[in-house]
């Protein structure tokens, strides 16, 4: 009995333990360093509490997270709507692949951050350019993942459908698309993380709100704890986003539950 209970509690204990150890390590290091250089966990916590009650740049901290999230999700939605079908098409149809992939291969190595100047030039410093940067980052990942997923669909499964006289349309929707759901999901997760990273890059360049703005504000006001609060917020929101998608995958791909 104790053994079984122990087995179930073990992972949770390890997770909590490793987080506590990390904070403890941070505390110890901060004791021996200049507090302006590395603020202690306690000071960062106090700063977080303060930020929850005092607005920065006219908005409270949750509003800033909301601003960043809205940019990310807008871009992500567009990237999904445009990127997924494009990638699936490229993987399924040779003609489509031949037409799209040369252009795509050329644009792919350009990091999203490199798009910032041109995005500002085209869309101004307001929302448009930030959303665009996030869009570029997640779009590329979504296209690539759905494309490779489609390329690696087991031909045996397609043949099985063909042997029942499935039309091309049926082969696509009944076999190919579900077969690449796992790689689509991997793409959705990576794309969301990428969009979240890109929004910060975009906000660091020029924004009056958002999590990136908090970090810049902390730098301008010379408040290291504020910078760290911004960074930790980024980490927390990012991992919550990833966790929610993992949960969605488990709900939508039940046959993979045993594997994950």
């Amino acid at each position, binding site marked *: 009995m104790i053994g079984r209970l122990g087995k179930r509690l073990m992972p949770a204990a390890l997770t909590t333990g490793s987080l506590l150890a990390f904070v403890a390590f941070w505390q110890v290091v901060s004791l021996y360093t200049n507090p302006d250089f590395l603020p202690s966990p306690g000071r960062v916590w106090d700063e977080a509490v303060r930020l929850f009650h005092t607005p920065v740049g006219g908005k409270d901290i949750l509003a800033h997270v909301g601003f960043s999230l809205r940019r990310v999700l807008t871009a992500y939605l567009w990237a999904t709507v445009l990127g997924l079908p494009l990638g699936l098409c490229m993987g399924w149809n040779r003609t489509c692949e031949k037409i799209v992939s040369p252009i795509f291969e050329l644009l792919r190595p350009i990091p999203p951050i490199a798009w910032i100047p041109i995005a500002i030039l085209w869309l101004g410093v307001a929302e448009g350019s930030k959303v665009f940067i996030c869009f570029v980052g997640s779009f590329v990942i979504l296209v690539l993942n759905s494309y490779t997923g489609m390329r690696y669909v087991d031909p*045996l*499964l397609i*043949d*099985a*459908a*063909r*042997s*029942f*006289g*499935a039309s091309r349309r*049926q082969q696509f929707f*009944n*076999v190919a698309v*579900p*077969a690449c*759901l796992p790689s689509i999901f991997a793409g959705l997760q990576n794309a969301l993380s990428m969009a979240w990273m890109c929004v910060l890059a975009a906000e660091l360049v020029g924004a009056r709100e958002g999590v990136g703005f908090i970090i810049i504000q902390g730098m301008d006001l010379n408040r290291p704890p504020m910078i760290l609060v911004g960074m930790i917020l980024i980490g927390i929101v990012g991992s919550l986003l990833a966790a929610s998608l993992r949960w969605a995958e488990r709900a939508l*791909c*039940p*046959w993979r539950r*045993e*594997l994950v």
Partner: protein
Amino acid sequence: METAATYPYAANRKTKVQVENLTKCYGDLLVLDKINFEIYQGELLCIVGPTGCGKTTFLNCLSQFIPMTEGSILVDGVPASPEIHNIAFVFQEVSAIPWLTVEDNIRFGLRIKRLPEAEIELRTERMLDLVGLRKYRTYYPQQLSASMEQRVVIARNFAINPDLLLMDEPYGQLDVKLRYYLEDELIRIWKELGSTVAFITHNIEEAIYLAERILILSPKPSTIKEEVIVDLPRPRQYDDPEFVRLREYVTERIKWW
């Protein structure tokens, strides 16, 4: 071929599939050379041949996965076509759909063929009973053993009531004990449903255990070298002298050296 008088096997049997002059070339390479034969309604036919004799090409032509160079395949007197006929295919590799449960795998072909929902349910239930997978109906293929997965595939193919069921060494990758078990199961389902089955194997013992009739293919370019009628009572015994004699005979005939 021969008349019913000299060929008693065909008496009272109706031709289901008629293959005429089936020829397949890959460029200059002649793989199948004017193959002629028929498969009778409700027959369990085995096709054996030496390795590399083009068994897979042969099946792919029959199932019309690849176009034949020459010749014709008639099902019930009409050129075979996926729109009219049901030609099912059990591959050598297990082709259960990983994201569908056992019961949905069985429904898969029926749904592709857009059968009425009530009919789909009726047939699915019947197949679940026939292959004895009722207990596992909500399992995913990954949760099953390889032999159970192959049974799911076999159920899925029998469910569409195929005009012709082609099986390409479906038990090739299973161990002997499971193979015996599944061979018996195949015979049981075939008898129960009266399906027409063409079973390709390189395992002569398996062919003699299953078949009513065996076609022996020659090495490339393949033709039908001989036809052997296996008229042994079932269940067949591997150590029955007649069984052994047939096995040795077919082995002798298959040799090309």
